[in-house]
């Protein structure tokens, strides 16, 4: 079988953009310079909410505005900080009430791809649908929507921005603007991307880690594998977008400890303990890890996959089967990747190539209020 390094050529061919046609409102301008890597594949922007310059700018402002919360202290960016890949560095996020949430903040990166269901358990079906949740949640931003509408209407800047972008202020418009801004959060210039584009080569250790990440093991043909690609797709490193393939049980808890996870949404027992497979883009800066932030370091994550898997009825068979052992040495009931210390280190080295400094510092994604303050000071 031929090796497929055509990929570099294709990447260089530039970003292909797929919009589900939809005419933006007259006063708005379609987002012109929005290009994305070809290898990320198809994506869909809802017809009712095309990406416009005005919508994205408004969304960015809302995202960073603490006035969206009841006590005017918490913004989306409190728990989704750019420098931390839009996470908050906490085991469990803390919002308006001071009561820690049951979940670890999720990175907001490349949300146009991967599972088009949001939250760890997939309970939200679109970014528009998701956006109004944290605003109203008592432990997150604890804001009454009517009160928020009144507050926004008193602000002349917001009034003008909403008028141009959406023809007025409404909860729907708030949701659409936040969704639009978040769709533009595309990370595509990590060292891994540069490697895919043929611009750099990885170090031998990173390359070893990449190979392990990208392979399901098969001892029969002497192929070692770390198995990661079985759930984290090769280019996006997120879960798969087809149906519910982007959710799975990666062995964090045993049968008795399984949380409902996706089964709370689908009602299927087979989905107990299934959570959204997150993108690993910028993973080196988004600790702690997993839905409950139980691991502080990538070393702990690798130890988990290598030798800490807990068995249960919904555990992925791919994890159980991936033992890097010939059949005659396989021990039933023993789950391990049987990686060496060097192999674990190599996978971690590869994970570090997913850090995209441009993304973490891109002024387009930063706090617009600080930018304005800077302009005023000048």
């Amino acid at each position, binding site marked *: 079988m031929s090796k497929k390094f055509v990929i570099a050529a294709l990447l260089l061919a530039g970003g292909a953009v797929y919009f589900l046609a939809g005419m933006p409102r007259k006063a708005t301008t379609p987002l012109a310079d929005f290009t994305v890597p070809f290898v990320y594949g198809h994506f869909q922007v809802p017809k009712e909410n095309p990406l416009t310059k005005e919508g994205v700018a408004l969304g960015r402002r809302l995202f960073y505005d603490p006035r969206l919360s009841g006590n005017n202290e918490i913004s989306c960016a409190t728990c989704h900080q750019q420098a931390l890949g839009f996470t908050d560095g906490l085991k469990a996020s803390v919002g308006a009430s001071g009561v820690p949430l049951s979940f670890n903040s999720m990175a907001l990166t490349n949300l146009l791809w991967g599972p088009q269901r949001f939250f760890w358990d997939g309970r939200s079906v679109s970014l528009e649908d998701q956006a109004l949740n944290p605003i109203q949640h008592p432990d997150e931003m604890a804001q009454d929507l009517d009160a928020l509408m009144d507050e926004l209407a008193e602000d002349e800047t917001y009034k003008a921005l909403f008028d141009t972008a959406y023809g007025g202020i409404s909860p729907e418009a708030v949701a659409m603007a936040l969704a639009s801004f978040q769709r533009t959060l595309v990370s595509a210039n990590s060292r891994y991307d540069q490697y895919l584009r043929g611009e750099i080569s990885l170090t031998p250790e990173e390359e070893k880690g990449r190979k392990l990440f990208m392979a399901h093991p*098969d001892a*029969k043909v002497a192929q070692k594998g770390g198995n990661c690609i079985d759930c984290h797709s090769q280019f996006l490193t997120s879960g798969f977008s087809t149906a519910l393939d982007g959710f799975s049980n990666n062995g964090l808890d045993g049968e008795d400890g399984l949380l409902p996870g996706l089964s709370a949404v689908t009602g299927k027992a087979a989905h107990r303990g299934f959570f959204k497979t997150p993108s690993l883009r910028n993973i080196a800066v988004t600790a702690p890890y997993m839905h409950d932030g139980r691991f502080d370091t990538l070393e702990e994550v690798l130890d988990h996959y290598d030798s800490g898997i807990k068995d249960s009825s919904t555990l992925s068979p791919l994890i159980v089967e991936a033992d890097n052992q010939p059949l005659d040495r396989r021990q039933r009931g023993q789950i391990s990747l049987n990686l060496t210390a060097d192999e674990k280190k190599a996978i971690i080295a590869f994970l570090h190539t997913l850090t995209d400094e441009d993304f973490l510092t891109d002024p387009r994604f930063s706090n617009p209020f600080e930018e304005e303050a800077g302009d005023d000071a000048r």
Partner: protein
Amino acid sequence: MTRAKTLLAVTILSAALLWVFLEMKPAVKPISLRFHALVDGEPLVLDDMRYQNPGGDGQFKVRDFQFYLSNIRLTGPGGDYVLPDSYHLLRFDGDQPYTEIRLPAMDASAFDAIHWGIGVDPEANGTIKITGDLDPNNRMAWNWQVGYKFILFEGGLEDSEGFLPLVYHVGFDENYTPQSLPFAAAAESGEETIVRFTVDIAALFRADGPLDMVTTPSVKFDRDDAARIAAGFPNMISASQ
């Protein structure tokens, strides 16, 4: 001829033409190809340890089953039809008891055979082009140096010694299997023509003699093992009336 007679003649002629036209106008409707998954002739039930290990002890369950079908083409007295960008991922975990491929509105009676390939043809398998259901970020991608899994079967087996995970990820270029089947409408509704097929998963484990899932619980990169499963491809899909 008087004007009245002429008018009458023209009217009769037009009516006759209209009648002939209506009679001959073929039933041009979208065609729905429906695939029903079976195990040994019985409808597939997912996540249930109900199936007998074909070549050994124990019961097995199917947790996930999906496969690629490529390059659908119809032939017959009415000509040839080639479906563009024809790469289809068939999976059986939806709400309906079948999975469907929809073809554009055509007269189904113009065709008597359907052709496709099980798997992904070597040319498409050798690129990371995103066409049809091919997507290098989906679950069927091995990785870009290898191409796509043609068939994904994941499940588990239970015997006296306990649980054994089953992973059959099968498909290399040489396993791509063109197939031709008779093509005939199973049913017509006002809106579409329905053509039915069955997909018997058991065919994969019987072609080369019954497979003992305990001694071969997984097939991945070993070419001989892959060929052994792929030997069942020609018997997997059948036309059903």
